[in-house]
């Protein structure tokens, strides 16, 4: 049996009649591929597999991608198997900054911050004025245990949230 992986080198076995050159077709596929113009639903599909830091970074690389980023955030299209984030504020930061911590991404997420803007509907809470009964952005996240966060004296309030 011919290897199916040698497609660039040999004609695949199921081609019965060729109207063009296979090799040329491969070369043709190398131009005109503009990731910045990928359809929004495809971008959303990709973005829904990203963890929050990667999602945020993808959202700023161009205006068009930002639209998809906003869609993923707005409709909470994040994949269900992402690990939850601990959102906390601490005394050494100002009251409008929330820090995010993800136990599965310790090296990256410990340093991800977000300015809390009162105008932003999704994050319009003040972490220092609202108690721990805050609504979480994803109910499945509440299964995490809050004890670790509460033990830390610098974390006055905590909640679990997903992007």
């Amino acid at each position: 049996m011919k290897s199916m992986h040698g497609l660039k080198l040999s004609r695949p076995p199921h081609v019965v009649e060729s109207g063009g050159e296979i090799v040329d077709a491969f070369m043709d596929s190398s131009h005109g591929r503009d990731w910045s113009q990928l359809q929004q639903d495809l971008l959303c599909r990709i973005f829904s597999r990203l963890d929050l830091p990667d999602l945020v970074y993808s959202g700023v690389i161009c205006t068009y991608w930002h639209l998809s980023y906003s869609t993923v955030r707005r409709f909470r299209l994040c994949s269900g198997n992402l690990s939850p984030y601990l959102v906390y504020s601490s005394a050494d930061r100002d009251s409008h900054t929330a820090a995010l911590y993800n136990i599965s991404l310790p090296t990256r997420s410990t340093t991800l911050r977000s300015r809390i803007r009162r105008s932003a509907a999704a994050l319009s809470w003040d972490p220092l004025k609202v108690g721990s009964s805050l609504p979480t952005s994803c109910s499945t996240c509440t299964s995490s245990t809050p004890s670790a966060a509460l033990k830390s004296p610098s974390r006055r309030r905590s909640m679990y949230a997903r992007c």
Partner: protein
Amino acid sequence: MAAPESGDGNNGAARMVTLISSDNTRFEVEAAAASLSQTLQLTILDGGGGGGDGIPLPNVDSATLSKVLEYCIKHAPAAANGGAPNATAVDRAELERFDNEFVNIDQSVLYSLIMAAHNLEIEGLQSLVAKKVADMIKGKSPMEIRRTLGFPDPTPEEQAEMNAHMLEYGWAYE
């Protein structure tokens, strides 16, 4: 594996259908494999694609279609088993190995593949390619993502816009 012989696939042997790429290359595959595409499935159920007439796919070139069919042929037996509840661990591992190797390809091919999988509505392939692209993005800064995916370097205005976005949404790594 698809047999290259055409003909009366209706009696005995697995039914074959012919797909015609945008550059007029004809591909003959088992109907079961082509039916992984939701788009093609209805046409095939209606009896299309057999005999002399093929199903034209004006949005998919031959290089991409052969890659798509490679995926379909590999995944058709498992799909026929209804998600393969009785598949052995070895089968599953083999499919996984195939998938990993399958998307280990040039970016331009990956792009064609994501468009083709979308047009043909092949759910498994769409997920596979989306996962691959997501993996390419993971752990990178915005500039690294741009470079990885071959975006042109940002103009000063775009750079300012990127910075403004970061500031506006207030995300920052300390």
